[in-house]
């Protein structure tokens, strides 16, 4: 398809014009290109009720229980980074996708795609770390698979993990349940993971003390759910790829509501802000691996916040915004100057600027 389609004045096609005929890196960014790929390729093919909720995990009825299942693939470079490695990340990421549905995670599968030439010692370190993370989270790795690809066809090693768990009782958290008036709660400062990874990449030799926030969030979620009435927490999401902006936009779109965020309420560590300033990036779009966003009934917001702050992973939790009737499907930010601006989903990855 040409990059410059003839403009006939009418937009009839739901797929945006100028869509590439090939997969671009941006299709994996968690931004709008990823969303388009899901809408145009995957959903039409797999169309079913559990999938169509588009939550981080699918919930299916099984033998009188609500069974939750999710899968995630990890392609992080470098394999080892401050605050974690691809092994612990593969456990945390999948557990968090379950946890966002209030699910008690139980079992994991692990599949490795190894590149010819990878040092076995590196693999051993990843596996050890993966096992330790699973043990700490109280889940077992019960099955797995290994494939090896030719040198040059993989980045050292890729990991896929699938997780299953049980939804307690009749709990139902879903990103289409945000209601005008609800509060938006964030569990802590954003951007740590993305900047920790970026600082390690070749060609970007700056020194930081920033550590990835990679962590399993299911115990925090459990603490949040205890002590508030059923239904008070509408939904939870972990703002991974695409950052806080993508997560907020997904909730706004799926619940058909507006979201107003307060710029000065969103916590960002000094080091992360500094790195973002230098690199021309916006922390709203930088990945996190140990944070969650919860949309909560205003009457229960203080109780949820209190429960979060009592948990080590939610100590810096705060209310960052409100769900609104207006601007449905859109996220807007009230700046420190009192003006409003849109918080858009990026088409693909954030691009470093020229100057």
């Amino acid at each position, binding site marked *: 398809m040409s990059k410059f389609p003839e403009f006939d004045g009418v937009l009839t096609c739901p797929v945006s014009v100028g869509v590439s005929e*090939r997969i671009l*890196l941006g299709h994996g960014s968690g931004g709008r290109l990823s969303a388009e790929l899901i809408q145009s390729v995957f959903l039409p093919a797999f169309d079913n009720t559990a999938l169509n909720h588009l939550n981080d995990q699918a919930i299916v009825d099984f033998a009188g229980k609500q069974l939750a299942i999710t899968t995630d693939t990890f392609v992080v470079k470098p394999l080892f980074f401050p605050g974690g490695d691809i092994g612990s990340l593969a456990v945390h990421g999948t557990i968090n996708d379950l946890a966002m549905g209030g699910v008690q995670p139980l079992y994991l599968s692990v599949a490795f795609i190894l590149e010819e030439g990878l040092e076995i010692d590196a693999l051993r370190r990843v596996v050890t770390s993966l096992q330790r993370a699973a043990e700490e989270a109280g889940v077992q790795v019960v099955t797995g698979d290994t494939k090896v690809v030719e040198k040059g066809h993989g980045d050292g090693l890729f990991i896929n993990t699938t997780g299953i768990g049980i939804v307690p009782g009749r709990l139902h958290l879903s990103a289409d349940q945000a209601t005008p008036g609800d509060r938006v709660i964030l569990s802590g400062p954003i951007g740590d993971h993305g900047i920790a990874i970026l600082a390690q990449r070749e060609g970007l030799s700056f020194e930081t003390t920033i550590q990835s926030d990679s962590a399993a969030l299911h115990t925090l979620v459990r603490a949040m759910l205890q002590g508030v009435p059923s239904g008070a927490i509408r939904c939870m999401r972990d703002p991974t790829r695409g950052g806080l902006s993508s997560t907020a936009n997904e909730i706004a779109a799926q619940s058909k509501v507006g979201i107003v965020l307060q710029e000065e309420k969103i916590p960002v560590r000094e080091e992360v802000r500094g790195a973002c300033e230098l690199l*021309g990036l916006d922390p709203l779009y930088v990945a996190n691996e140990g944070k969650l966003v919860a949309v909560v009934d205003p009457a229960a917001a203080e109780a949820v916040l209190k429960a979060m702050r009592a948990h080590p992973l939610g100590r810096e939790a705060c209310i960052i915004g409100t769900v609104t009737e207006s601007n449905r499907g859109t996220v807007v930010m009230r700046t420190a*100057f009192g*003006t409003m601006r849109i918080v858009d989903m990026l088409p693909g990855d954030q691009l470093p600027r020229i100057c």
Partner: protein
Amino acid sequence: MRYIDEFRDPRLAKSLIADIVRHVTRPWVLMEICGGQTHTLVRYGFDELLPRYIELVHGPGCPVCVTPLDRVDKAIAIASRPDVIFVSYGDMLRVPGSKSDLFQVKAAGGDVRVVYSPCEAVKIAEANPDRQIVFFGVGFETTAPAHALTVLQAHRLGLLNFSLLASHVLVPPAIETLLQSPRNRVQGFIAPGHVCTIVGYKEYEQLAARHHVPIVVGGFEPTDLLEAIRELILQLETGRAEVVNQYARSVSRAGNLAAQQAIELVFERCDRRWRGIGFIPKSGMRIRAEFAQYDAERVFGIEESGAEEASECIAADVLMGLKKPMDCPAFGSVCVPESPLGAPMVSSEGACAAYYRYRRHETQASGEVH
């Protein structure tokens, strides 16, 4: 964050705005030249906070935006060669050429790499002696010294596999063109602080005197821009036309002499086409004949594609400050960042992209959020 937060202080901003309101008595049209300045103004919504009759128009100072189509095509042709590692700044990758963009070249197997520092390209050349390394040298006077250094460094190292696809443009000739245009509406300019950090502002003093127009060399943070706007209003209201340096923490009158020397050594002025605007005499820089072996245009000898812009794109009027992005019928419908019709929608510094990213709610639900 120290040295940043001070320039984003809402209380200081409010007092600057109050000061502007106190002094302004009639409508004025001001232009910020640099895309980075546009971005700050739109991001923080200052055009909303200022009195309605101070009109801010957005200038041609986005290097990604004004890089002409045929140069992007040239870059794509070179990057598609199997013997080439093509190195670029990140935001050039999504810029549409006439048929493709560098992201698609990469997806089709081209070796396209993103760097923050041009000197990384020289390191890549050292590490890959069997490949041709080409750096896409885009930018205003700001990036030119670093690009000149890549050539000097490659020369010093005796590298035979490094070249620069130079696509530099200069700000003062563009301001001159704008001021000479019978359609010009701009009455005062915020000059680009980063450009002036390199070249100083003597040339701007000549412009101000010749056209009797006030010019304030401005920074990029909210209070920088409000201070610059206040200075322009004070001058306009009292009939003055001077150059004032608001961004004194970075800019001196003479500029960075070492950087200027590097530019002078490697580049010479030439006529250059600007995307959306057209030819501007002596507005570009090309590599001098002495360094021909580092000039990608000479090394690869790729013909100009002569490609023209999509006709419905009003980039020219936007870049010259005659129209606002939202005046374009294609804005936000057929022209979006994923499939831009013209360059101002591509870069995060482009005026159309800034409006799309931060201000679309005004067209969607006017009034509801205010």
